């Protein structure tokens, strides 16, 4: 009997360990496999590098052109992060105002929706006509894309307060302000963090799209501008290198925001709890 349990237990532990390793190993293996296949296709078909460079050449270009691509990555990251910060302030601020005043919500929510549903590529050219400063223009575009998920998620969270807890606050004579700070904001935190993760990716997309629209008109230095520029010069390897950097930035932003979310919620929210099975 105990022996049967023991074998079962060992099997279970082994499965758990296999899964832990697999979580990292499997994606790593698929990526390596994809790179190898890409490389083989290029080599075996003798595709010239100005049509499709192999992964090795892209990596070389990444190193060789780092003097150009590095600063460009920094610029794009900076714009995306600034846009995200402004989106957080704007999104949470608006959500709080909406939750405090039904009238404000009724009046301004439609504008938020209109901003959200209009593609940023369509608004961006106008923005660059009216906004002189290029950085401010980029920021504005990225903000328009990024703030809505934060606004709508935080709004939802502020409204998802446990009814009994709300009653309790009422019984103990909490002020509107106390209720907001001690009850509504913590209740909204998981929703906000979910919105933040979406907004992180969107702010990068917004920054890149805006840079494309802004084009070569100004003094461009971001990754999107480098892709455009390399495209004009048929420098395909550099286009791929810049693309890889944008993807890496996206993954980095997502990973950092996921970590923040985990750290903020690990003590209490279901989504961040390790299940002990």
């Amino acid at each position: 009997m105990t022996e049967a349990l023991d074998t079962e237990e060992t099997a279970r532990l082994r499965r758990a360990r296999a899964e832990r390793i697999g979580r990292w190993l499997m994606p790593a293996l698929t990526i390596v496999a994809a790179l190898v296949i890409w490389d083989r296709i290029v080599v075996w078909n003798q595709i010239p590098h100005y049509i499709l460079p192999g992964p090795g050449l892209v990596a070389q270009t990444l190193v060789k052109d780092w003097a150009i691509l590095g600063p460009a990555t920094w610029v794009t990251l900076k714009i995306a992060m600034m846009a995200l910060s402004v989106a957080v302030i704007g999104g949470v601020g608006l959500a709080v105002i909406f939750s405090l005043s039904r009238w404000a919500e009724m009046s301004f929510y439609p504008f938020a929706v209109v901003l959200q549903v209009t593609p940023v590529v369509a608004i961006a050219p106008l923005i660059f006509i009216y906004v002189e400063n290029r950085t401010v223009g980029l920021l504005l575009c990225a903000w328009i894309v990024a703030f809505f998920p934060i606004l709508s998620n935080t709004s939802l969270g502020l409204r998802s307060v446990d009814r009994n807890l709300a009653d309790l606050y009422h019984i103990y004579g909490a002020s509107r302000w106390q209720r907001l700070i001690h009850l509504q904001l913590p209740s909204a935190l998981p929703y906000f963090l979910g919105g933040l993760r979406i907004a992180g990716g969107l702010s990068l997309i917004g920054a890149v799209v805006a840079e494309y629209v802004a084009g070569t008109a100004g003094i461009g230095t971001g990754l999107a501008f480098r892709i455009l520029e390399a495209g004009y010069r048929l420098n395909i390897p550099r286009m791929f290198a810049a693309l890889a950097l944008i993807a890496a930035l996206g993954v980095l932003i997502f990973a950092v925001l996921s970590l923040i979310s985990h750290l903020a919620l690990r003590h209490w929210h279901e989504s961040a709890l390790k299940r002990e099975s």
Partner: protein
Amino acid sequence: MRMDGVGKVFAGGVTALSGMNLRVATGEFVSLLGPSGCGKSTALRLIAGLMQPTTGKVSWQGKHDSGDLGVVFQEPTLMPWATVEKNVWLPLRLRGESLPDARPRIAQALEMVGLGSFANAYPRELSGGMKMRVSIARALVTQPRLILMDEPFAALDEITRNKMNDDLLALRDRLGCTVIFVTHSVFESVYLSDRIVVMAPRPGRVAEELTVPAPRRDEEFRTSADYAAQCRAVSAALSRATGDA
């Protein structure tokens, strides 16, 4: 506290209570007993001031403010993001007391419910019964003169529930507060209360009131013939109330 001819009609046209009269004297332990849907929670919410009666009025003798009232709901209703200590701090915090100032009283309240060593635990790390105790500690921390409890132990198993009943009686002896206790359990109401208000459904109203004389409330009382007889009497009253609806 007294309720005079209190009625409550909800927006949907549901008459939850009609013509309810109730008097509760200081220091009394009163149970509201009735089948679910007979307006017990509604009565309690009216007493707590969470809603206004459609007819009649709820009045208080002497002064009365939010600090005099402690409430325990059917669910523990804890803030999952806060530790046990911070949850119990809530009523004091809303009055503007800092955590260091409030800490001795929080510790005392947790001690009373037997959770002295769990101040820094998060609610999710506790069992159902322990969460309920935290909820009770939170209601006690202001040393209220009146505690309202809405089926606080309904979700607990019988062993835990009996234990909590004993603890509740002990606490109440120490604090000397008034308790209005909502339950749908005949046994619980007889064991705990000085007086049982049997309620009838559709529309919710008071059907009968019974006093429960008991010298001591302990394990001996719980197994005595006297207790069984009183439970039978209350059960009979309850079926009369439900039957003639």
